[in-house]
């Protein structure tokens, strides 16, 4: 297999004094959708935040597209092609929907145009003048994803996109992710909703206590159900 687009080795991270990640290893290949599974508080979000570089107290090796990302300052990460959608979505209340959408600078030509985005998310076009936080939770999630898609990021880091959303919205987000996969987008997803994840992901990593305890492909899933039930407590 060729070299992974994102390759993480022995990633450790700390919140102040508390050691949150204990040596995470993972790979995400071009065009793949990979999901980190695990219970609350095992370090999934921390892993994403460390990969992006929000958490600076970290050690190990992060390579993206062959480049060492450990020394890249936070505001340069995006320029390398890593787009991040945080768990809390981070829609700005003092910006209109369209201002939110066009806020992140475009870093590569192959990003979606505004027209394509409005085609994919018609709601956003209707409400482009209203303040970002006046949108519903589902719309805010769409907006948070859409604004990264516009930049032409090569890797999308998605933290719990379905959290707190109604089933019909979750389904819609699933469709959007399928569309993105068809377009060849690479996605690293953190998800607690296992059913949702099993529909979109190609591969899984199971995280517990700041470590990866298992990884498998989607076709290996049936054999892992009992282990997953135990690990995820579902």
């Amino acid at each position: 297999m060729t070299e992974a687009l994102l390759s993480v080795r022995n990633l450790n991270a700390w919140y102040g004094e508390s050691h949150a990640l204990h040596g995470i290893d993972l790979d995400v290949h071009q065009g793949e959708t990979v999901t980190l599974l695990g219970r609350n508080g095992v370090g999934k979000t921390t892993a994403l935040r460390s990969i992006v570089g929000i958490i600076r107290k970290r050690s190990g090796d992060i390579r993206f597209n062959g480049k060492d990302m450990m020394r890249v300052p936070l505001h340069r990460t995006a320029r390398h092609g890593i787009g991040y959608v945080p768990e809390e979505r981070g829609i700005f209340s003092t910006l209109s929907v369209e201002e939110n959408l066009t806020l992140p600078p475009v870093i590569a030509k192959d990003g979606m145009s505004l027209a394509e985005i409005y085609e994919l998310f018609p709601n956003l076009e209707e409400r482009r003048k209203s303040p970002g936080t006046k949108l519903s939770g589902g719309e805010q999630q769409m907006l948070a994803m859409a604004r990264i898609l516009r930049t032409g990021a090569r890797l999308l880091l998605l933290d719990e996109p379905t959290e707190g959303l109604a089933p019909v919205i979750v389904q819609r987000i699933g469709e959007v992710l399928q569309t993105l996969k068809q377009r060849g987008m690479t996605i690293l997803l953190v998800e607690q909703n296992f059913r949702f994840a099993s529909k979109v992901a190609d591969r899984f990593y199971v995280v517990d206590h700041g470590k990866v305890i298992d990884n498998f492909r989607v076709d290996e899933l049936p054999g892992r159900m009992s282990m997953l039930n135990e690990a995820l407590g579902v």
Partner: protein
Amino acid sequence: MTTIFDVPVQAFLGQLLIGLINGSFYAMLSLGLAIIFGMLKIINFAHGAQFMVGAFAGYLLLKGIGVGYWPALILAPLVVGLASAAIERIALSRLYNLDHLYSLLFTFGLALTLEGAFRYFFGASGQPYAVPKELAGGYNLGFMFLPKYRAWVVLASLVICIASWLLIEKTKLGAYLRASTENPTLVRTFGINVPLLLTFTYGMGAALAGLAGMLAAPIYQVSPLMGSNLIIVVFAVVVVGGMGSILGAIITGYMLGILEGLTKVFYPEASNIVIFVIMAIILLVRPAGLMGRDA
């Protein structure tokens, strides 16, 4: 003679104009404070000193190298802005992760230092700055005499306030600033150099103060202490208006300036303290300020 509430109309309008002039400076200064506060979450105690440095820069440009009023109107704020941006880079930026107390104390120390330094070199007395000849003289409006320069200051401050507001509310740069005010970390993950934006913001806020100082130079005497008393009043303005909104800072500035002018007409003894009294009343009835959004 025509009177309003037993006050001659001319005196009334004269004080109203002075109030409007003071209000123009309150508005420009509280606007700068609000911009800096929004992004950096610090109270810029040195704002008054930067106002003073702006006035002195204009004075020195004229006396030292013979630069006239109009170029100085650009150069003086530029000098203040660049110097302040440098200070932000070198010193202030090291304090963001600490209690806000420390950045406040740092800017207080900066204010004292600037004041002391200018006193050392120029003495405490005021230096005159002549009104540029294009703006000398005035208009006889029939009911009162309106000096051209004062009309210019009111107009200029309005333009400055509206332009700043447009810059923040309607431009891409403004969107970056607003977004960084809400969530600087996320804005950084988008690939925007937020620390640089902070430096820019501090420089811009200080430049606004410097511009106000340059405008004030022909009206007030240029002196090392011209900013410090003003800035305390502006703090009260800011408490009244609330720093959550730029527009609030501007409107409150004009309003309180005019109110202060009117107090001079009707009850001169209280004109020094009327803004503070209003602040106290606002705190009693509406602690968050007229347009405040802060907790």
